[in-house]
Every structure is written in C-alpha cells, then in structure tokens.
C-alpha cells in the first residue's frame, strides 16, 4: 500500500489529509489521473509531487510503503 498526503486547498478539495491506496507499481502520472478522477478534481498540472519527502518526476514508479505528497504551489514566507 502507498500513503498519499494532501495539503492546503487540495486537502480541502479532496476532503482528506491522508489516504492509503493500492497503487504500488503505478507511476506518479497514473496516480495523478486516478486521484483526479476519484475526487473529481480539475487538472493537477501545477501540483508538484514528492515521494518520501523528495520532489520527483511524473515517470517515477511507486513502491510499497512509499509516502506520496501532492504539493500545490507553495506560499510560505
């Protein structure tokens, strides 16, 4: 299983901070599409993705126990 985290406005849109999904073996791109469809979101083009606390590209393949974070454009400072 893979842990998936949402933050800020995306967390509000999804209605969850954390979900656990059976998506090991899928790519980030495939997970994005799944999330978009599951939660009826618009496109996620501006959302960066981190796996195990590091930013990754869309072609990365997920492993069991990975933690994926969907990171909308940041606004700290």
């Amino acid at each position, binding site marked *: 299983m893979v842990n998936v985290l949402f933050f*800020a406005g995306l967390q509000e*849109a999804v209605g969850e901070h954390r979900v656990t999904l059976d998506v090991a073996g899928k790519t980030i791109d495939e997970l994005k599409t799944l999330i978009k469809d599951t939660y009826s979101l618009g496109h996620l083009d501006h959302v960066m993705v981190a796996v195990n606390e590091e930013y990754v590209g869309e072609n990365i393949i997920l492993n069991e126990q990975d933690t994926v*974070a969907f990171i909308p*454009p940041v*606004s*700290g*400072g």
Partner: protein
Amino acid sequence: MEHNFWITEEPIALNDVIEKVTRREVGAINIFTGTVRELTDGKRTLFLEYDAYKPMAEKKLAQIGQEIKEKWGDAETAIVHRVGRLDISDVAVAIAISTPHRKAAFAASSYAIDRIKEIVPIWKKEHWSDGTQWIGDQKERHSYDKGIPTEEAMGNG
C-alpha cells in the same frame, strides 16, 4: 545541522535563530523576518493560517542552508517557520545567516527567502472579512485555481 531548520507552532523568538549561527569568526549576522501584512492590494487581511508538510519542509529548509554554504562558502544559516494561526505583524519566518563579512550575509538572506517561496512545502490561507483562500503563488494575484475543481472547494466567499 538539521536542528538549525525547523517548523514551529509557537511564536518565534528571534534570539533562538541568532544563537544558532553566532560564531567567533563572523563579523555579520543578518536577520530577516517575514511578518503578516494587513493590506495586500487594498484588501484587508484579518489573520493568516499556515500549514506545512513538516518533515519535508524542515528538509527543504536544510537544503537551502546547504545551497547557501555552496554559494557563499563560510556561511551558517538558521531558519524557523511558524504554522497555525498568525495575526497581523506576527513573525511567520525568521532567517539568520552569519558570515565573516556583511555583503554575503545580506545576499544569502535574500536568496534564502526566495528559495523558501519556491521549494518549501508551506502554505498560507488568507482570512478576509468576506472569505478565505489558500494562496498558491507568491505574487498573490491568483490562487492555484487550476489545480482544484470549483470555487466552493476553494472556500471562496
């Protein structure tokens, strides 16, 4: 080194970051603080709410400290960012950088705050009298509306 970079829910005490970078061999410690602004383009903020992906945010702050070392050499950095509800004039972020001479400390501080706004997973939500909104870019002109479905989900009021 990681203990120089942290997220807190408590009010920020500037002495905490200054102490982290104080060294006998430096002649400059530059402190930058980012504070909660009341007016943005004429719109009055009541208060802000910050959220962070804490473990990753602390890692990314540490990465910025490492980047500063690579760019300016002998530079020690400490950064703390507050999360939760912040009122007007509260300190949201404090950066302290110590260097042997002042120019590097000024330049590195500017670099640090710019990088925070690029790579550190921290978000702020504006609370106005007529609504709320998570802010998605630092120009504060528009939120990341394309990433989520509806205005209702944004909490626009």
